[in-house]
């Protein structure tokens, strides 16, 4: 029987639709032409210029500092939230789940505006603190969902076995629970890191003067017009985020 080529064609079209723009961007970041309409030779100039720009370095520093703090905060909170969702029996458990899950589906712009109004109402000065708090707010949900997934197929008789063999709660957590859940928690943390690094909408609302992150910098560069630099920067950002996501997926698979 002859196999239809329709599925193949559709697959190629969908993939092209998804990834062609990104490919164009990556290719253009090596294009000597300033406007990217035509290929005028291979160059690394844009990357060189990019790395010489103090503004870029500043934004990069901001982004990573915020991402690291937000990742640590959301990993701790998200992991404990996952435990609470998995272990406690309460009539309100469905509501709790919804509360943790909601930030994943609430429009980002809504989150951004409400956080901004909240900070203004509390008279908190916009800056590093507000960005970190905002990032933790939405990253917690992602971490909680990833860790919860791992907890749901965790064999709790292992914890009983540890207690049975004389381990108290702390020793059980240190010697059994954490080592076995570490890949799941690490995967959640990497996901949180990625989300924090490339968040634009929420950061846009809660950032203050001098706390420009990379995505915000890219946006202002578009306004002031230097497309090749944006291409180069986006390519680098793409590299960082895809690597982290790939690492996180690998950790999850290994844990299974």
């Amino acid at each position, binding site marked *: 029987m002859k196999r239809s080529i329709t599925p193949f064609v559709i697959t190629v079209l969908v993939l092209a639709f998804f990834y062609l723009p990104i490919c164009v961007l990556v290719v253009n970041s090596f294009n000597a032409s300033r406007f990217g309409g035509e290929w005028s030779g291979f160059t690394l100039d844009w990357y060189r210029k990019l790395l010489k720009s103090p503004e870029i370095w500043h934004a990069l520093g901001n982004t990573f500092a915020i991402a690291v703090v937000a990742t640590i905060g959301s990993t701790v909170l998200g992991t404990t939230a996952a435990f609470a969702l998995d272990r406690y029996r309460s009539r309100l458990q469905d509501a709790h789940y919804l509360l943790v899950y909601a930030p994943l589906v609430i429009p980002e712009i809504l989150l951004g505006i409400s956080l901004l109004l909240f900070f203004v109402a509390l008279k908190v000065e916009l800056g590093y603190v507000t960005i970190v708090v905002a990032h933790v707010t939405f990253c917690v949900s992602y971490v909680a969902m990833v860790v919860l997934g791992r907890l749901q197929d965790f064999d709790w*008789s*292992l914890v*009983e*076995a540890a*207690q*049975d*063999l004389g*381990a108290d709660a702390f*020793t059980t957590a240190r010697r059994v629970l954490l080592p*076995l859940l570490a890949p799941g928690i690490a995967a959640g943390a990497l996901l949180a890191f990625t989300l924090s690094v490339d968040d634009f909408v929420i950061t846009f609302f809660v950032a203050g003067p001098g706390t420009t992150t990379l995505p915000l910098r890219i946006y202002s560069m578009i306004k002031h017009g230097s497309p090749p630099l944006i291409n180069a920067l986006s390519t680098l950002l793409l590299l960082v985020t895809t690597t982290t996501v790939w690492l996180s997926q690998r950790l999850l698979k290994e844990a299974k």
Partner: protein
Amino acid sequence: MSDFIQFENVSRQYGNVRAVDDVSLGIRKGEFFSLLGPSGCGKTTLLRMLAGFERPDTGRVLLDGVDITELPPERRKVNTIFQNYALFPHLSVRQNIAFGPTVARRPRREVDEEVDKMLALIQMRDHADKRIDQISGGQKQRVAIARALINKPAVLLLDEPLAALDLKLRQRMLIELDMVHDQVGITFVFVTHDQGEAMSLADRVAVMNAGHIEQIGRPVEIYETPQTSFVAAFIGDSNFFEGVVEEVTDVEHVKLAIEGFSALRAFNDKGLAKGDRVFLSVRPEKIRISRDEPHAGPDYNIARAVVDDVIYLGTHTLFWLRSGDYRLAVEQQHNRFVLDELPIRWKDEVWLQWHVDDGFMLERYAESDEALMGIPPQRVGEGDPAPAANERG
């Protein structure tokens, strides 16, 4: 009051279900004790109370005279072999066995020495550094045993440890467990739903049903003199007859009036009087089947029957028969002399014979227990002889 382990009026309720209902039970030191019953009978809850994973709502649990009801699991001198062994997948065989002493902060060298001894005992020295997913089911059980015994517990709890193994391996591990018990001499409490495991290993068995204990005794007592119809039906199989006492013939025996049978007699250990309603149980293998009329004796009941079905089972043959109003199961071993006779076949008219002392008087079984019976009691005209019907007017 000298029992090593004591459950005193222990109860535990989950929602509306009484998982354990006012159970009192004593287990002796060094004994291989088995809790046997269908799933949901409360045997695992009882075991988990002993391990410390469950607290009773009311009642006390004592170990060696000390109340341990509120003691957390890590402070009890009790170790457990879990149903799926619960070995730590992130640790090697050696690290698994060393877990208890390591957590207890015993000196490293001492721990190593004892782990080596344990590895030798379970013949796993060559596999010490393997990961848990690299060893077989039988080896896992041995590691679980070593991991528990290295802590020198006063009691070893076994929660259906053989359930995960296939038949042949189960038989081998059964023997190994028995040998381990003989070697270490500590008290074993073994939970199972498999009567074969309980009967072959245990010194004493407690048969549980719906949260309470039906009978405690040596395996032979449980099998030969069941005290309730649940025990008679759950351990092995039973034929049940319903009738009234017609006459108390002597101190130990009564004559029964059962529809369709003439003058059945049975052992009367319940002190029944004339006119009492009774429920008579006779095990299938206690009934002899023959073509020729057996010699009538005062100690034997005799009845006529017609063969409905013959099921050859290798070690024995199961006959389904019709006799009076009843459909009966009879098991016959293949003795050599039988080969010389014509084999009994479908629709043959045969004689049944059993010793009067092989019938026990029991209470009427609960309808809900019928699902657990290998041979559900049936009367003729209530469906097929296959064990399916469960209605009984």
